[in-house]
């Protein structure tokens, strides 16, 4: 039916999925051998578009594992350049990358891991409509940012666009991971962060143990893969807390707050 094939909606209406080549079936065989993943799951990853906000410690870990895992398309967003204090934990940036944009430095490292996936970079701090336009083009958003303002804006936009948000944070020897699928009955990041007020504490001020950002970033990558491939039970509406000082993990339920300024009964609308 030529009419249908010429339609701009052909991809959605025919649900065309890019198939994996024989060499890709081999490359990702250790994934495909997982009963829940199988070829179907890997093909979903290959057809997924993931937005990573922030290429610091968390973003480097997330991007590294998603690249190796065979996500079809990654978009990296960061307006910063690499400096010597980053090298202790931001493993995609190398000594020779000091002074380069974090996007380009990370892209070069990721390209060496996997030449088949699509890597986009945005060397800007996105906000407002520009951020919304970028989010719309992706299947899932991974928050690896280092401040509450960005976290709250990502949450608001993901809520409005109904995109799943995988949130992670790390400081000192502690980490937090949660997933928000932005459905009517599940909480959003603001349902949690409304408890905390406006205080902003970043790694610059408090220090962070290098592998802790790797652990948290890898947990975010794991949650993103679970959501995209449709396997396991993601941390939807839950907050996982890691304390690396005694390697304890506690998981808490976040209740949807009727008073939430984002997802509550009288939602706040931003321009």
């Amino acid at each position, binding site marked *: 039916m030529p009419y249908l094939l010429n339609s701009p909606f052909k991809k959605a209406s025919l649900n065309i999925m890019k198939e994996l080549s024989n060499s890709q079936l081999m490359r990702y065989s250790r994934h495909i051998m997982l009963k829940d993943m199988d070829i179907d799951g890997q093909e979903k990853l290959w057809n997924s578009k993931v937005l990573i906000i*922030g290429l*610091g*410690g*968390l*973003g480097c870990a997330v991007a590294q594992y998603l690249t190796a895992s065979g996500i079809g398309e990654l978009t990296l967003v960061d307006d910063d350049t690499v400096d010597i204090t980053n090298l202790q934990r931001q493993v995609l940036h190398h000594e020779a990358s000091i002074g380069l944009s974090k996007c380009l430095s990370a892209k070069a490292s990721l390209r060496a891991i996997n030449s088949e996936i699509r890597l986009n970079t945005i060397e800007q701090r996105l906000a407002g409509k520009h951020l919304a336009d970028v989010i719309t083009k992706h299947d899932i958003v991974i928050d*690896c*940012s*280092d*401040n*509450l303002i960005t*976290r709250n804006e990502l949450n608001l936009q993901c809520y409005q666009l109904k995109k799943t948000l995988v949130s*992670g*944070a*790390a*400081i000192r020897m*502690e*980490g*937090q991971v949660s997933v928000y699928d932005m459905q009517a009955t599940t909480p959003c990041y603001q349902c*949690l*962060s*409304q*408890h*905390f*007020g406006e*205080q*902003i*504490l*970043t*790694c610059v001020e*408090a220090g*962070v143990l290098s592998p802790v*950002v790797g652990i948290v970033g890898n947990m975010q990558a794991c949650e993103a893969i679970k959501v995209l491939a449709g396997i396991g039970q993601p941390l939807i509406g839950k*907050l996982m*807390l890691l304390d690396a000082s005694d390697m*304890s993990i*506690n*998981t*808490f*339920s*976040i*209740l949807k*707050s009727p*008073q939430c300024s984002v997802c509550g009964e009288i939602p706040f609308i931003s321009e």
Partner: protein
Amino acid sequence: MRIMINNIEHLVDNSELVEIIKQYGAKAPFAVAINGEFVAKSNYATTQVQPDDLVDIVSPIFGG
């Protein structure tokens, strides 16, 4: 009564959550979970803690 606060045993004589938070000396900002479920700030005043409850006082982190 005996309760757990951040995985450490505490003996408290008041069952009101607000009093327990005050006695513990929690410094804002924080969120409070009882038995794994966060309590809305607006419910703090009316929340009573039961013996053997697991109370967690959680500080926010935003670092990346």
